[in-house]
């Protein structure tokens, strides 16, 4: 993957609606050719960020730099980026063909060029032959593809996608994820994608930006976000996890629920309270006495790929995933490898704690 210079810079963006702050001094850089996902619960400010990029919302403060130019006050129709709207926003009075041709006609392209482009775009989204249909008669997935086709024929440098798969059913959503990755690679442009679905974000993105309450919580590759969450909110929001209060005894040694565990993190200081994240699939079950803790299985559910169990040990209900089932009541041991223990600083202020607890 070739990632080069910054294409977009959001600088100190602040926006409030009716006195409620939605974005607070947000700074974000987006590279050329990147698939960047804004991920967060509803109301976290991700959609507002996207609408600021599209030009539909003007920030109260801050600047939007696009390709070296300040476009903060440029109206949407003058911006070289296109949006795929959440509910597609296809023009109901126009055919598929007319919808796709809309932007090209406005920019005054020749009929032959427009015709070629429509063919190309429809082929790209696997809907050739649908030119004369009315969008209202198409299925959700098909409307979605038309909306994408309508946006990309204008050859934008950036495609903004606002929860575009939200209205589709699970199977279709998974298919469309692969479609989008393929499309992005074929087009070679920047995708900025908004979703509240962590799985979607991890599957498709080069970079994931986790947002909550108008702040960026963490930005990184999907692996970084999943394996090394920087705070409890991110750990909790991305996948299942056990989040436990713990004390950092010294570098590479942490005490969890009265038991000392070796770990790989350092630099937190000695005897410092921290949060610890252990993913349920990283906990190792064994016969009593073979691990660092002993406990009792309290719940078992079959999940298809694995069993999900709850194990009561040292006063904490651990979420454990394993391919092997242990019946309820079984005495087991629990252990975890040092590199699977993720240490995080406690939230600095009460404010941040509130943010974490809120979710």
């Amino acid at each position: 993957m070739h990632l080069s210079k910054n294409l977009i810079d959001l600088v100190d963006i602040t926006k409030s609606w009716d006195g409620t702050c939605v974005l607070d001094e947000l700074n974000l850089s987006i590279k050329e050719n990147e698939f960047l996902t804004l991920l967060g619960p509803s109301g976290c400010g991700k959609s507002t960020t996207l609408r600021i990029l599209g030009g539909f919302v003007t920030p109260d403060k801050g600047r939007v730099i696009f390709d070296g130019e300040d476009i903060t006050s440029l109206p949407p129709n003058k911006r070289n980026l296109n949006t795929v709207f959440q509910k597609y926003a296809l023009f109901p009075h126009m055919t598929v063909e007319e919808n796709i041709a809309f932007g090209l006609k406005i920019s005054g392209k020749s009929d032959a060029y427009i015709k070629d482009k429509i063919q190309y775009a429809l082929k790209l989204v696997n809907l050739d032959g649908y030119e004369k249909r009315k969008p209202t008669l198409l299925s959700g997935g098909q409307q979605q593809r038309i909306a994408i086709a309508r946006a990309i024929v204008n050859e934008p440098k950036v495609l903004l996608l606002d929860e575009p798969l939200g209205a589709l059913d699970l199977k279709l959503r998974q298919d469309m994820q692969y479609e989008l990755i393929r499309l992005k690679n074929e087009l070679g442009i920047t995708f900025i994608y908004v979703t509240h679905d962590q799985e979607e974000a991890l599957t498709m993105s080069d970079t994931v930006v986790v947002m909550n309450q108008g702040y960026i919580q963490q930005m990184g590759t999907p692996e970084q976000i999943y394996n090394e969450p920087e705070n409890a909110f991110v750990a909790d929001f991305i996948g299942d996890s056990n989040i436990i209060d713990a004390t950092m005894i010294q570098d590479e040694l942490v005490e969890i629920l009265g038991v000392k565990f070796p770990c790989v993190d350092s630099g937190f200081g000695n005897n410092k309270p921290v949060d610890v994240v252990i993913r349920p699939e990283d906990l190792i079950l064994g016969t009593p006495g073979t691990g660092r803790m002993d406990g009792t299985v309290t719940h078992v559910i079959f999940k298809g790929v694995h069993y999900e169990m709850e194990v009561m040990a040292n006063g904490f209900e651990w979420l454990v995933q394993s391919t092997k089932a242990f019946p309820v009541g079984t005495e087991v041991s629990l252990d975890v490898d040092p590199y699977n223990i993720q240490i995080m600083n406690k939230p600095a202020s009460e404010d941040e704690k509130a943010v974490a607890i809120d979710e």
Partner: protein
Amino acid sequence: MNKRKLLAGPYMVWAAGFIILPLLIVLYYGLTNADGGFSFANFIAITDPMHLKALGESLLIAFGSTVISLVVAYPLAYILSKMQGGKSGIIIMMFILPMWINFMLRVLALQMILSNNGLLNALLGFLHLPLQHIMYSKTAILIGMTYDYLPFMILPIYNAMCKIDRDLLDAAADLGAGRLQSFRRIIIPLSLPGVISGIIMVFIPSISEFAIADILGGSKILLIGNVIEQEFSLSSNWNLGSGLSIVLMIFIFISMAIMNRTETDEEGTSV
């Protein structure tokens, strides 16, 4: 389930007795002469120069008031649809309110203003402008009809405009459309159904109108509505009145069919 169907029974009897049957009676009268013999004379009577002139005047005035209403109401509905939040409900209500005010009352109010020694001329005289003899002219009838039926044009267009998804306007802007282009290519075509029902709601009452013509036009101008009315009230030639009524009805249904055609055509070909 079958018992539930019976609940529609009284209305079905009512509809047969008071919607279908009366129209059949009109048809019967229209197709017979004074002696009860079968005749097409009452239909052909529309070609009588006086009747043709009345029909022509009616069409002209109805067309005029429809066009004026549309030109006035369309921008108004557009502006109103842009207003959002607390006060907008009341503002729209104020524009719809005249629909609910007794029709005769509004005619009376206009009569007061337009008459030769009425308020308009008093105002013009005060400003030393030439007095206007609007009363008892086609202009007076045109003003009267436009004034009376304007709210019926505003409401459906406003409703259609409000139904337009704001996302569509965002999408148009996103694809490079300026305000004018968005208006021409999104708002106008999507508000068309409202325009069509507005036109129907203004044109149909206008073309058969006789009371406005009677009060504001004096008895000088005869519209087809006046002709029909007089056949029943003055001449007691019910056969002729019925025949002309049916001709009027046919005119209305033809114009409605044309309007509906326009609507579907527009949908099919607009680019």
